[in-house]
Protein backbone atom coordinates (compact mmCIF):
# COMPACT_ATOMS: atom_id res chain seq x y z
CA UNK A 1 0.00 0.00 0.00
CA UNK A 2 2.75 2.47 0.94
CA UNK A 3 4.34 1.77 -2.43
CA UNK A 4 1.19 2.85 -4.30
CA UNK A 5 0.90 6.03 -2.29
CA UNK A 6 4.53 6.83 -3.02
CA UNK A 7 3.97 6.20 -6.73
CA UNK A 8 1.07 8.59 -6.84
CA UNK A 9 2.98 11.25 -4.93
CA UNK A 10 5.89 11.26 -7.38
CA UNK A 11 3.58 11.27 -10.37
CA UNK A 12 1.58 14.06 -8.75
CA UNK A 13 4.80 16.06 -8.48
CA UNK A 14 5.57 15.45 -12.16
CA UNK A 15 2.13 16.65 -13.20
CA UNK A 16 2.54 19.76 -11.04
CA UNK A 17 5.99 20.50 -12.40
CA UNK A 18 4.89 20.21 -16.00
CA UNK A 19 1.62 22.03 -15.35
CA UNK A 20 3.11 24.85 -13.30
CA UNK A 21 5.83 25.49 -15.90
CA UNK A 22 3.13 25.85 -18.54
CA UNK A 23 0.91 27.97 -16.31
CA UNK A 24 3.50 30.45 -15.12
CA UNK A 25 5.10 30.86 -18.54
CA UNK A 26 1.64 31.23 -20.13
CA UNK A 27 0.79 33.84 -17.52
CA UNK A 28 3.99 35.72 -18.23
CA UNK A 29 3.66 35.84 -22.01
CA UNK A 30 -0.07 36.51 -21.84
CA UNK A 31 0.92 39.92 -20.49
CA UNK A 32 2.47 40.78 -23.89
CA UNK A 33 -0.91 40.66 -25.61
CA UNK A 34 -1.40 44.11 -27.15
CA UNK A 35 2.16 45.22 -26.36
CA UNK A 36 4.43 43.20 -28.68
CA UNK A 37 6.81 44.93 -31.14
CA UNK A 38 4.82 43.98 -34.25
CA UNK A 39 1.26 42.81 -34.71
CA UNK A 40 2.37 39.53 -36.34
CA UNK A 41 4.50 38.79 -33.28
CA UNK A 42 1.64 39.72 -30.94
CA UNK A 43 -0.55 37.11 -32.61
CA UNK A 44 2.16 34.44 -32.66
CA UNK A 45 2.98 34.90 -28.99
CA UNK A 46 -0.71 34.72 -28.07
CA UNK A 47 -0.83 31.33 -29.81
CA UNK A 48 1.98 30.10 -27.60
CA UNK A 49 0.21 31.42 -24.50
CA UNK A 50 -2.99 29.67 -25.55
CA UNK A 51 -1.19 26.37 -26.05
CA UNK A 52 0.44 26.67 -22.64
CA UNK A 53 -2.84 27.42 -20.86
CA UNK A 54 -4.35 24.41 -22.63
CA UNK A 55 -1.48 22.23 -21.45
CA UNK A 56 -1.88 23.60 -17.92
CA UNK A 57 -5.46 22.37 -17.88
CA UNK A 58 -4.36 18.88 -18.87
CA UNK A 59 -1.45 18.58 -16.44
CA UNK A 60 -3.17 20.16 -13.45
CA UNK A 61 -6.31 18.18 -14.28
CA UNK A 62 -4.21 15.04 -14.02
CA UNK A 63 -2.59 16.27 -10.82
CA UNK A 64 -5.99 16.82 -9.23
CA UNK A 65 -7.08 13.36 -10.29
CA UNK A 66 -3.95 11.74 -8.88
CA UNK A 67 -4.29 13.61 -5.62
CA UNK A 68 -7.83 12.36 -5.21
CA UNK A 69 -9.03 15.23 -3.02
CA UNK A 70 -11.44 16.61 -5.56
CA UNK A 71 -9.32 19.60 -6.51
CA UNK A 72 -9.79 20.80 -10.10
CA UNK A 73 -7.15 22.31 -12.36
CA UNK A 74 -8.58 25.73 -11.48
CA UNK A 75 -8.34 25.00 -7.74
CA UNK A 76 -4.71 24.05 -8.17
CA UNK A 77 -3.93 27.07 -10.30
CA UNK A 78 -5.73 29.69 -8.27
CA UNK A 79 -5.76 28.44 -4.69
CA UNK A 80 -2.26 27.11 -4.04
CA UNK A 81 0.31 29.24 -2.31
CA UNK A 82 3.79 29.96 -3.65
CA UNK A 83 5.51 27.20 -1.69
CA UNK A 84 3.26 24.60 -3.29
CA UNK A 85 4.15 25.67 -6.84
CA UNK A 86 6.60 23.42 -8.65
CA UNK A 87 7.64 25.42 -11.72
CA UNK A 88 11.29 25.98 -12.50
CA UNK A 89 12.70 29.40 -11.62
CA UNK A 90 13.29 30.18 -15.30
CA UNK A 91 9.63 30.61 -16.22
CA UNK A 92 8.84 33.01 -13.39
CA UNK A 93 11.59 35.45 -14.42
CA UNK A 94 10.18 38.84 -15.52
CA UNK A 95 9.33 39.60 -19.12
CA UNK A 96 12.00 42.29 -19.24
CA UNK A 97 12.53 43.61 -22.75
CA UNK A 98 11.40 41.47 -25.67
CA UNK A 99 14.88 39.93 -25.84
CA UNK A 100 14.50 38.53 -22.32
CA UNK A 101 11.06 37.19 -23.15
CA UNK A 102 12.35 35.45 -26.27
CA UNK A 103 15.45 34.08 -24.58
CA UNK A 104 13.43 32.72 -21.67
CA UNK A 105 11.07 31.15 -24.19
CA UNK A 106 13.87 29.54 -26.16
CA UNK A 107 15.66 28.21 -23.07
CA UNK A 108 12.38 26.65 -22.01
CA UNK A 109 11.24 25.35 -25.41
CA UNK A 110 14.58 23.71 -26.16
CA UNK A 111 14.12 21.64 -22.99
CA UNK A 112 10.34 21.30 -23.13
CA UNK A 113 10.22 19.72 -26.54
CA UNK A 114 12.69 16.83 -25.97
CA UNK A 115 11.13 16.33 -22.53
CA UNK A 116 7.70 15.88 -24.07
CA UNK A 117 9.07 13.63 -26.81
CA UNK A 118 10.44 11.38 -24.07
CA UNK A 119 7.19 11.54 -22.05
CA UNK A 120 5.29 10.26 -25.07
CA UNK A 121 6.66 6.82 -24.21
CA UNK A 122 5.85 7.12 -20.52
CA UNK A 123 4.80 3.93 -18.78
CA UNK A 124 1.81 5.91 -17.52
CA UNK A 125 -0.75 6.22 -20.30
CA UNK A 126 -2.26 9.44 -18.98
CA UNK A 127 1.13 11.11 -19.08
CA UNK A 128 1.85 9.73 -22.54
CA UNK A 129 -1.49 11.02 -23.84
CA UNK A 130 -0.91 14.55 -22.62
CA UNK A 131 2.65 14.52 -23.98
CA UNK A 132 1.38 13.33 -27.34
CA UNK A 133 -0.74 16.43 -27.77
CA UNK A 134 1.61 18.92 -26.11
CA UNK A 135 4.67 17.73 -28.04
CA UNK A 136 3.28 18.93 -31.37
CA UNK A 137 2.63 22.36 -29.91
CA UNK A 138 6.04 22.52 -28.24
CA UNK A 139 7.76 21.54 -31.49
CA UNK A 140 6.27 24.59 -33.15
CA UNK A 141 7.14 26.83 -30.20
CA UNK A 142 10.75 25.67 -30.41
CA UNK A 143 10.93 26.13 -34.16
CA UNK A 144 9.80 29.70 -33.73
CA UNK A 145 11.81 30.75 -30.71
CA UNK A 146 15.00 29.11 -32.01
CA UNK A 147 14.62 30.90 -35.33
CA UNK A 148 14.17 34.25 -33.60
CA UNK A 149 17.20 33.73 -31.36
CA UNK A 150 19.37 33.03 -34.39
CA UNK A 151 17.99 35.94 -36.39
CA UNK A 152 18.25 38.50 -33.63
CA UNK A 153 21.62 37.25 -32.41
CA UNK A 154 22.90 37.59 -35.95
CA UNK A 155 20.86 40.71 -36.74
CA UNK A 156 21.80 44.31 -35.98
CA UNK A 157 24.42 45.37 -33.44
CA UNK A 158 21.66 46.36 -31.04
CA UNK A 159 19.66 43.16 -31.39
CA UNK A 160 22.85 41.13 -30.87
CA UNK A 161 23.70 43.06 -27.76
CA UNK A 162 20.22 42.72 -26.30
CA UNK A 163 20.12 38.98 -26.95
CA UNK A 164 23.55 38.55 -25.37
CA UNK A 165 22.45 40.48 -22.27
CA UNK A 166 19.34 38.34 -21.99
CA UNK A 167 21.35 35.14 -22.39
CA UNK A 168 23.80 36.21 -19.68
CA UNK A 169 20.94 36.95 -17.33
CA UNK A 170 18.86 33.85 -18.00
CA UNK A 171 21.31 31.05 -18.73
CA UNK A 172 21.94 30.39 -15.03
CA UNK A 173 18.30 29.24 -14.76
CA UNK A 174 18.60 26.63 -17.54
CA UNK A 175 20.35 24.01 -15.44
CA UNK A 176 17.39 23.48 -13.12
CA UNK A 177 15.33 22.09 -15.97
CA UNK A 178 17.48 18.95 -16.21
CA UNK A 179 18.78 18.71 -12.64
CA UNK A 180 17.28 15.48 -11.29
CA UNK A 181 16.17 15.08 -7.69
CA UNK A 182 14.93 11.96 -5.89
CA UNK A 183 11.47 12.31 -7.44
CA UNK A 184 12.90 12.42 -10.95
CA UNK A 185 15.08 9.41 -10.12
CA UNK A 186 12.09 7.46 -8.90
CA UNK A 187 10.00 8.33 -11.98
CA UNK A 188 12.87 7.44 -14.33
CA UNK A 189 13.41 4.10 -12.60
CA UNK A 190 9.79 3.23 -13.24
CA UNK A 191 9.94 4.58 -16.83
CA UNK A 192 7.19 7.10 -16.15
CA UNK A 193 9.58 9.93 -17.02
CA UNK A 194 12.93 10.01 -18.81
CA UNK A 195 16.37 10.19 -17.27
CA UNK A 196 16.72 13.96 -16.97
CA UNK A 197 20.47 13.72 -17.41
CA UNK A 198 19.90 12.31 -20.89
CA UNK A 199 17.40 15.05 -21.75
CA UNK A 200 19.95 17.55 -20.46
CA UNK A 201 22.68 16.26 -22.78
CA UNK A 202 20.48 16.71 -25.82
CA UNK A 203 19.34 20.09 -24.50
CA UNK A 204 22.86 21.42 -24.09
CA UNK A 205 23.88 20.15 -27.50
CA UNK A 206 21.03 22.01 -29.17
CA UNK A 207 21.72 25.19 -27.17
CA UNK A 208 25.35 25.00 -28.25
CA UNK A 209 24.56 24.81 -31.94
CA UNK A 210 21.82 27.46 -31.79
CA UNK A 211 23.98 29.97 -29.93
CA UNK A 212 26.85 29.34 -32.28
CA UNK A 213 24.65 30.10 -35.25
CA UNK A 214 23.28 33.13 -33.41
CA UNK A 215 26.84 34.34 -32.70
CA UNK A 216 26.02 34.42 -28.97
CA UNK A 217 28.17 33.21 -26.10
CA UNK A 218 26.48 31.40 -23.24
CA UNK A 219 28.11 31.68 -19.81
CA UNK A 220 28.41 27.88 -19.71
CA UNK A 221 30.19 27.82 -16.36
CA UNK A 222 27.78 30.08 -14.49
CA UNK A 223 26.41 28.65 -11.26
CA UNK A 224 22.97 27.11 -11.70
CA UNK A 225 20.10 28.77 -9.90
CA UNK A 226 17.46 26.32 -8.82
CA UNK A 227 14.86 25.41 -6.24
CA UNK A 228 11.52 26.13 -7.93
CA UNK A 229 10.86 22.44 -8.62
CA UNK A 230 10.99 21.87 -4.87
CA UNK A 231 8.94 24.95 -4.01
CA UNK A 232 11.82 27.33 -3.23
CA UNK A 233 11.01 30.18 -5.57
CA UNK A 234 12.38 33.58 -6.40
CA UNK A 235 10.51 36.58 -5.03
CA UNK A 236 8.88 36.99 -8.45
CA UNK A 237 6.39 34.19 -7.94
CA UNK A 238 4.56 35.83 -5.07
CA UNK A 239 3.72 38.82 -7.26
CA UNK A 240 2.65 36.61 -10.13
CA UNK A 241 0.25 34.76 -7.84
CA UNK A 242 -1.01 37.94 -6.20
CA UNK A 243 -2.19 39.08 -9.60
CA UNK A 244 -3.25 35.75 -11.07
CA UNK A 245 -5.12 34.45 -8.02
CA UNK A 246 -6.56 37.71 -6.82
CA UNK A 247 -10.14 37.17 -8.00
CA UNK A 248 -10.45 33.64 -6.64
CA UNK A 249 -9.02 34.83 -3.33
CA UNK A 250 -11.15 37.98 -3.12
CA UNK A 251 -14.44 36.22 -3.85
CA UNK A 252 -14.16 32.78 -2.28
CA UNK A 253 -16.46 30.20 -3.84
CA UNK A 254 -17.85 32.50 -6.55
CA UNK A 255 -18.40 31.01 -10.02
CA UNK A 256 -17.11 32.91 -13.02
Amino acid at each position, binding site marked *: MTATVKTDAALFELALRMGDNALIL*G*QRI*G*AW*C*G*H*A*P*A*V*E*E*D*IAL*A*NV*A*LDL*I*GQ*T*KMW*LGLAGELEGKGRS*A*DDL*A*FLRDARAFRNALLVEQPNG*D*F*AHTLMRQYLFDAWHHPMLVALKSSADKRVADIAEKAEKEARYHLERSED*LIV*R*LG*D*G*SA*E*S*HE*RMQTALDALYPFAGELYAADAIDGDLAARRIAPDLGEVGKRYLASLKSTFEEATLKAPWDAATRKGGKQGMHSEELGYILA*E*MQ*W*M*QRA*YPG*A*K*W
Partner: protein
Amino acid sequence: MYAQMVKSTGERVKALDEMGPEERAFQERVDADIKIEPKDWMPEGYRKTLVRQIGQHAHSEIVGQLPEGNWITRAPTLDRKAILIAKVQDEAGHGLYLYCAAETLGVSRDEMTEELLSGKAKYSSIFNYPTLTWADIGAIGWLVDGAAIMNQVPLQRCSYGPYSRAMIRICKEESFHQRQGYDIMMRLCEGTAEQKEMAQDALNRFWQPALMMFGPSDKDSVHSAQSMAWKIKQNSNDELRQKFVDQTAPQAEYLGLNVPDPDLKWNEEKQGYDFSEPDWNEFYEVLKGNGPCNKERMEARQKAWNEGAWFRDGLMANAKKKKARRMAAE
Protein backbone atom coordinates in the same frame (compact mmCIF):
# COMPACT_ATOMS: atom_id res chain seq x y z
CA MET B 1 -18.45 53.42 -35.12
CA TYR B 2 -14.97 51.99 -34.92
CA ALA B 3 -14.65 54.84 -37.37
CA GLN B 4 -16.86 57.44 -35.73
CA MET B 5 -15.93 60.77 -37.21
CA VAL B 6 -14.49 60.12 -40.62
CA LYS B 7 -14.17 63.34 -42.50
CA SER B 8 -15.38 62.71 -45.97
CA THR B 9 -13.52 64.78 -48.52
CA GLY B 10 -16.40 65.05 -50.96
CA GLU B 11 -17.90 68.49 -50.43
CA ARG B 12 -21.35 67.39 -51.43
CA VAL B 13 -22.83 64.59 -53.38
CA LYS B 14 -22.63 65.27 -57.09
CA ALA B 15 -25.32 64.23 -59.51
CA LEU B 16 -24.26 61.85 -62.28
CA ASP B 17 -24.55 64.52 -64.95
CA GLU B 18 -22.17 66.80 -63.07
CA MET B 19 -19.42 64.19 -63.22
CA GLY B 20 -16.71 63.65 -65.77
CA PRO B 21 -16.78 60.36 -67.70
CA GLU B 22 -14.37 58.49 -65.37
CA GLU B 23 -16.16 59.51 -62.20
CA ARG B 24 -19.48 58.76 -63.76
CA ALA B 25 -18.36 55.26 -64.77
CA PHE B 26 -17.05 54.79 -61.23
CA GLN B 27 -20.31 55.92 -59.62
CA GLU B 28 -22.35 53.72 -61.93
CA ARG B 29 -20.31 50.71 -60.91
CA VAL B 30 -20.84 51.56 -57.24
CA ASP B 31 -24.57 51.98 -57.87
CA ALA B 32 -24.66 48.59 -59.61
CA ASP B 33 -22.94 46.98 -56.58
CA ILE B 34 -19.81 46.14 -58.53
CA LYS B 35 -16.81 46.17 -56.19
CA ILE B 36 -14.09 48.75 -56.69
CA GLU B 37 -10.64 47.16 -56.67
CA PRO B 38 -7.25 48.74 -55.83
CA LYS B 39 -6.14 49.46 -59.38
CA ASP B 40 -9.49 50.79 -60.59
CA TRP B 41 -9.91 54.50 -61.15
CA MET B 42 -11.45 56.18 -58.15
CA PRO B 43 -12.07 59.78 -57.09
CA GLU B 44 -9.32 61.09 -54.84
CA GLY B 45 -11.93 61.87 -52.18
CA TYR B 46 -13.09 58.24 -52.17
CA ARG B 47 -9.52 57.03 -51.72
CA LYS B 48 -8.76 59.50 -48.94
CA THR B 49 -12.00 58.90 -47.08
CA LEU B 50 -11.41 55.15 -47.23
CA VAL B 51 -7.83 55.46 -45.98
CA ARG B 52 -9.14 57.44 -43.00
CA GLN B 53 -12.05 55.13 -42.33
CA ILE B 54 -10.14 51.87 -42.65
CA GLY B 55 -7.22 53.37 -40.75
CA GLN B 56 -9.47 54.42 -37.85
CA HIS B 57 -11.06 51.02 -37.87
CA ALA B 58 -7.64 49.30 -37.77
CA HIS B 59 -6.33 51.60 -35.02
CA SER B 60 -9.47 50.88 -32.99
CA GLU B 61 -8.80 47.15 -33.15
CA ILE B 62 -5.21 47.61 -32.05
CA VAL B 63 -5.96 50.09 -29.24
CA GLY B 64 -8.99 47.94 -28.42
CA GLN B 65 -6.64 45.18 -27.32
CA LEU B 66 -5.58 47.24 -24.33
CA PRO B 67 -8.64 47.59 -22.06
CA GLU B 68 -9.36 43.88 -22.25
CA GLY B 69 -5.75 42.71 -22.43
CA ASN B 70 -5.38 44.42 -19.11
CA TRP B 71 -7.40 41.56 -17.54
CA ILE B 72 -5.59 38.59 -19.10
CA THR B 73 -3.29 38.18 -16.12
CA ARG B 74 -6.22 38.45 -13.69
CA ALA B 75 -8.88 36.35 -15.43
CA PRO B 76 -10.59 34.26 -12.76
CA THR B 77 -10.34 30.77 -14.33
CA LEU B 78 -8.10 29.00 -16.82
CA ASP B 79 -10.92 28.84 -19.37
CA ARG B 80 -11.72 32.53 -19.04
CA LYS B 81 -8.04 33.32 -19.40
CA ALA B 82 -7.77 31.29 -22.62
CA ILE B 83 -10.96 32.78 -24.08
CA LEU B 84 -9.78 36.29 -23.30
CA ILE B 85 -6.35 35.72 -24.87
CA ALA B 86 -8.05 34.32 -27.97
CA LYS B 87 -10.33 37.31 -28.19
CA VAL B 88 -7.64 39.93 -27.72
CA GLN B 89 -5.54 38.01 -30.24
CA ASP B 90 -8.41 38.18 -32.73
CA GLU B 91 -8.43 41.94 -32.34
CA ALA B 92 -4.75 42.07 -33.28
CA GLY B 93 -5.58 39.92 -36.30
CA HIS B 94 -8.44 42.19 -37.30
CA GLY B 95 -6.20 45.22 -37.01
CA LEU B 96 -3.74 43.43 -39.28
CA TYR B 97 -6.37 42.58 -41.92
CA LEU B 98 -7.61 46.15 -41.92
CA TYR B 99 -4.16 47.71 -42.20
CA CYS B 100 -3.54 45.45 -45.19
CA ALA B 101 -6.81 46.59 -46.76
CA ALA B 102 -5.79 50.23 -46.30
CA GLU B 103 -2.36 49.48 -47.74
CA THR B 104 -3.94 48.61 -51.07
CA LEU B 105 -4.78 52.33 -51.28
CA GLY B 106 -1.13 53.35 -51.29
CA VAL B 107 -0.39 54.08 -47.65
CA SER B 108 1.96 51.91 -45.60
CA ARG B 109 1.24 50.36 -42.22
CA ASP B 110 4.16 52.12 -40.59
CA GLU B 111 2.87 55.44 -41.90
CA MET B 112 -0.56 54.75 -40.47
CA THR B 113 0.97 53.69 -37.16
CA GLU B 114 2.95 56.89 -36.95
CA GLU B 115 -0.22 58.88 -37.58
CA LEU B 116 -1.91 57.09 -34.71
CA LEU B 117 1.00 57.64 -32.36
CA SER B 118 1.33 61.30 -33.20
CA GLY B 119 -2.35 61.79 -32.39
CA LYS B 120 -3.21 62.71 -35.96
CA ALA B 121 -5.29 59.62 -36.64
CA LYS B 122 -8.23 58.75 -34.41
CA TYR B 123 -9.62 55.55 -32.95
CA SER B 124 -12.95 54.72 -31.35
CA SER B 125 -13.82 56.70 -28.22
CA ILE B 126 -14.96 53.54 -26.43
CA PHE B 127 -11.43 52.31 -25.77
CA ASN B 128 -10.65 55.35 -23.66
CA TYR B 129 -12.76 54.03 -20.79
CA PRO B 130 -11.13 51.96 -18.06
CA THR B 131 -11.86 48.31 -17.27
CA LEU B 132 -12.16 48.37 -13.53
CA THR B 133 -13.67 45.00 -12.71
CA TRP B 134 -14.02 41.58 -14.31
CA ALA B 135 -17.61 42.48 -15.17
CA ASP B 136 -16.25 45.12 -17.56
CA ILE B 137 -14.85 42.29 -19.67
CA GLY B 138 -18.37 40.90 -19.89
CA ALA B 139 -19.87 44.31 -20.63
CA ILE B 140 -17.34 45.01 -23.37
CA GLY B 141 -18.03 41.71 -25.11
CA TRP B 142 -21.77 42.14 -24.82
CA LEU B 143 -22.16 45.86 -25.54
CA VAL B 144 -19.04 46.96 -27.39
CA ASP B 145 -18.74 43.91 -29.61
CA GLY B 146 -22.50 43.92 -30.00
CA ALA B 147 -22.36 47.49 -31.29
CA ALA B 148 -19.34 46.67 -33.46
CA ILE B 149 -21.07 43.73 -35.11
CA MET B 150 -24.10 45.89 -35.84
CA ASN B 151 -21.86 48.24 -37.78
CA GLN B 152 -19.63 45.66 -39.38
CA VAL B 153 -22.26 43.36 -40.81
CA PRO B 154 -23.44 45.96 -43.36
CA LEU B 155 -19.81 46.93 -44.07
CA GLN B 156 -19.34 43.49 -45.59
CA ARG B 157 -21.21 44.94 -48.56
CA CYS B 158 -19.02 48.04 -48.76
CA SER B 159 -18.09 49.11 -52.29
CA TYR B 160 -14.34 48.74 -51.82
CA GLY B 161 -13.35 45.11 -52.45
CA PRO B 162 -10.42 44.72 -50.01
CA TYR B 163 -12.36 46.39 -47.15
CA SER B 164 -15.44 44.31 -47.85
CA ARG B 165 -13.41 41.08 -47.86
CA ALA B 166 -11.63 42.03 -44.63
CA MET B 167 -15.03 42.68 -43.02
CA ILE B 168 -16.33 39.30 -44.13
CA ARG B 169 -13.43 37.52 -42.45
CA ILE B 170 -13.71 39.70 -39.35
CA CYS B 171 -17.44 39.12 -38.93
CA LYS B 172 -16.93 35.38 -39.23
CA GLU B 173 -14.21 35.32 -36.59
CA GLU B 174 -15.97 37.73 -34.30
CA SER B 175 -19.16 35.79 -33.94
CA PHE B 176 -18.05 34.38 -30.57
CA HIS B 177 -16.98 37.68 -29.08
CA GLN B 178 -20.37 39.04 -28.15
CA ARG B 179 -21.57 35.66 -26.92
CA GLN B 180 -18.60 35.18 -24.59
CA GLY B 181 -19.30 38.63 -23.12
CA TYR B 182 -22.94 37.86 -22.52
CA ASP B 183 -21.93 34.52 -21.05
CA ILE B 184 -19.74 36.32 -18.49
CA MET B 185 -22.67 38.61 -17.65
CA MET B 186 -25.05 35.66 -17.24
CA ARG B 187 -22.66 33.93 -14.87
CA LEU B 188 -22.34 37.10 -12.79
CA CYS B 189 -26.09 37.63 -12.67
CA GLU B 190 -26.66 34.06 -11.50
CA GLY B 191 -23.97 34.49 -8.87
CA THR B 192 -23.67 36.22 -5.51
CA ALA B 193 -25.17 39.63 -4.75
CA GLU B 194 -21.70 41.07 -5.02
CA GLN B 195 -21.26 39.64 -8.50
CA LYS B 196 -24.59 40.93 -9.67
CA GLU B 197 -23.77 44.36 -8.35
CA MET B 198 -20.51 44.22 -10.28
CA ALA B 199 -22.47 43.42 -13.46
CA GLN B 200 -24.90 46.29 -12.90
CA ASP B 201 -22.06 48.69 -12.28
CA ALA B 202 -20.37 47.66 -15.53
CA LEU B 203 -23.60 48.20 -17.48
CA ASN B 204 -24.02 51.58 -15.81
CA ARG B 205 -20.57 52.68 -16.91
CA PHE B 206 -20.55 51.21 -20.43
CA TRP B 207 -24.10 51.96 -21.60
CA GLN B 208 -23.57 55.55 -22.71
CA PRO B 209 -20.10 55.03 -24.14
CA ALA B 210 -21.55 52.12 -26.16
CA LEU B 211 -24.28 54.38 -27.59
CA MET B 212 -21.61 56.91 -28.54
CA MET B 213 -19.83 54.30 -30.61
CA PHE B 214 -22.26 54.93 -33.46
CA GLY B 215 -21.06 58.51 -33.77
CA PRO B 216 -22.96 61.80 -33.48
CA SER B 217 -26.62 62.16 -34.21
CA ASP B 218 -27.54 62.26 -37.92
CA LYS B 219 -28.47 65.91 -37.70
CA ASP B 220 -24.88 66.71 -36.61
CA SER B 221 -23.16 64.18 -38.81
CA VAL B 222 -21.88 66.16 -41.76
CA HIS B 223 -19.97 63.51 -43.62
CA SER B 224 -22.55 60.82 -44.09
CA ALA B 225 -24.25 61.65 -47.37
CA GLN B 226 -21.17 61.34 -49.57
CA SER B 227 -20.00 58.19 -47.79
CA MET B 228 -23.42 56.66 -48.29
CA ALA B 229 -23.43 57.56 -51.98
CA TRP B 230 -20.03 55.86 -52.27
CA LYS B 231 -21.34 52.88 -50.30
CA ILE B 232 -18.56 52.96 -47.77
CA LYS B 233 -21.21 53.58 -45.15
CA GLN B 234 -24.52 51.80 -45.38
CA ASN B 235 -26.69 53.00 -42.52
CA SER B 236 -27.00 56.26 -40.68
CA ASN B 237 -25.66 56.61 -37.14
CA ASP B 238 -29.10 56.99 -35.61
CA GLU B 239 -30.51 54.00 -37.46
CA LEU B 240 -27.78 51.74 -36.10
CA ARG B 241 -28.04 53.21 -32.61
CA GLN B 242 -31.79 52.53 -32.56
CA LYS B 243 -31.22 48.98 -33.74
CA PHE B 244 -28.63 48.47 -31.03
CA VAL B 245 -30.94 49.69 -28.27
CA ASP B 246 -33.80 47.56 -29.57
CA GLN B 247 -31.59 44.50 -29.48
CA THR B 248 -29.87 45.20 -26.19
CA ALA B 249 -32.69 46.36 -23.90
CA PRO B 250 -34.42 42.94 -23.80
CA GLN B 251 -31.05 41.26 -23.24
CA ALA B 252 -30.49 43.43 -20.18
CA GLU B 253 -33.95 42.52 -18.96
CA TYR B 254 -33.17 38.83 -19.32
CA LEU B 255 -30.12 39.34 -17.13
CA GLY B 256 -32.25 41.18 -14.57
CA LEU B 257 -30.15 44.32 -15.00
CA ASN B 258 -31.40 47.88 -15.33
CA VAL B 259 -30.39 49.95 -18.31
CA PRO B 260 -29.22 53.23 -16.76
CA ASP B 261 -31.72 55.39 -18.61
CA PRO B 262 -34.97 56.45 -16.88
CA ASP B 263 -36.44 57.35 -20.26
CA LEU B 264 -35.93 53.96 -21.85
CA LYS B 265 -39.40 52.83 -22.83
CA TRP B 266 -40.94 50.63 -25.53
CA ASN B 267 -42.72 52.74 -28.13
CA GLU B 268 -45.49 50.69 -29.68
CA GLU B 269 -46.01 53.14 -32.50
CA LYS B 270 -42.45 53.14 -33.81
CA GLN B 271 -41.95 49.53 -32.79
CA GLY B 272 -38.74 50.45 -31.06
CA TYR B 273 -37.46 51.84 -27.79
CA ASP B 274 -37.35 55.51 -26.89
CA PHE B 275 -34.13 56.35 -25.11
CA SER B 276 -32.05 59.34 -23.99
CA GLU B 277 -29.28 60.72 -26.12
CA PRO B 278 -25.86 60.14 -24.63
CA ASP B 279 -23.91 63.10 -23.35
CA TRP B 280 -22.39 64.45 -26.54
CA ASN B 281 -20.16 66.89 -24.69
CA GLU B 282 -18.46 63.94 -23.10
CA PHE B 283 -18.13 62.31 -26.51
CA TYR B 284 -16.38 65.31 -28.05
CA GLU B 285 -14.12 65.64 -25.02
CA VAL B 286 -13.05 62.00 -25.32
CA LEU B 287 -12.40 62.45 -29.05
CA LYS B 288 -10.27 65.49 -28.26
CA GLY B 289 -8.11 63.34 -26.03
CA ASN B 290 -9.67 64.19 -22.68
CA GLY B 291 -11.27 60.84 -21.88
CA PRO B 292 -10.38 58.88 -18.76
CA CYS B 293 -7.71 56.73 -20.46
CA ASN B 294 -6.64 58.46 -23.69
CA LYS B 295 -3.24 59.22 -22.29
CA GLU B 296 -2.57 55.70 -21.01
CA ARG B 297 -3.73 54.09 -24.24
CA MET B 298 -1.44 56.20 -26.37
CA GLU B 299 1.47 55.72 -24.01
CA ALA B 300 1.05 51.97 -24.15
CA ARG B 301 1.05 51.95 -27.95
CA GLN B 302 4.01 54.32 -28.14
CA LYS B 303 5.95 52.16 -25.75
CA ALA B 304 5.22 49.00 -27.75
CA TRP B 305 6.28 50.74 -30.95
CA ASN B 306 9.37 52.54 -29.67
CA GLU B 307 10.69 49.73 -27.54
CA GLY B 308 10.02 47.23 -30.33
CA ALA B 309 12.01 49.14 -32.94
CA TRP B 310 15.24 47.20 -32.27
CA PHE B 311 13.32 43.93 -32.79
CA ARG B 312 11.84 44.96 -36.13
CA ASP B 313 15.13 46.46 -37.30
CA GLY B 314 17.15 43.51 -36.04
CA LEU B 315 15.09 41.09 -38.08
CA MET B 316 15.41 43.27 -41.17
CA ALA B 317 19.16 43.44 -40.67
CA ASN B 318 19.27 39.66 -40.47
CA ALA B 319 17.15 39.23 -43.59
CA LYS B 320 19.48 41.54 -45.51
CA LYS B 321 22.58 39.68 -44.30
CA LYS B 322 21.09 36.37 -45.32
CA LYS B 323 20.19 37.67 -48.73
CA ALA B 324 23.69 39.03 -49.24
CA ARG B 325 25.20 35.70 -48.20
CA ARG B 326 22.97 33.83 -50.61
CA MET B 327 23.92 36.16 -53.44
CA ALA B 328 27.62 35.76 -52.63
CA ALA B 329 27.28 31.98 -52.69
CA GLU B 330 25.57 31.96 -56.08
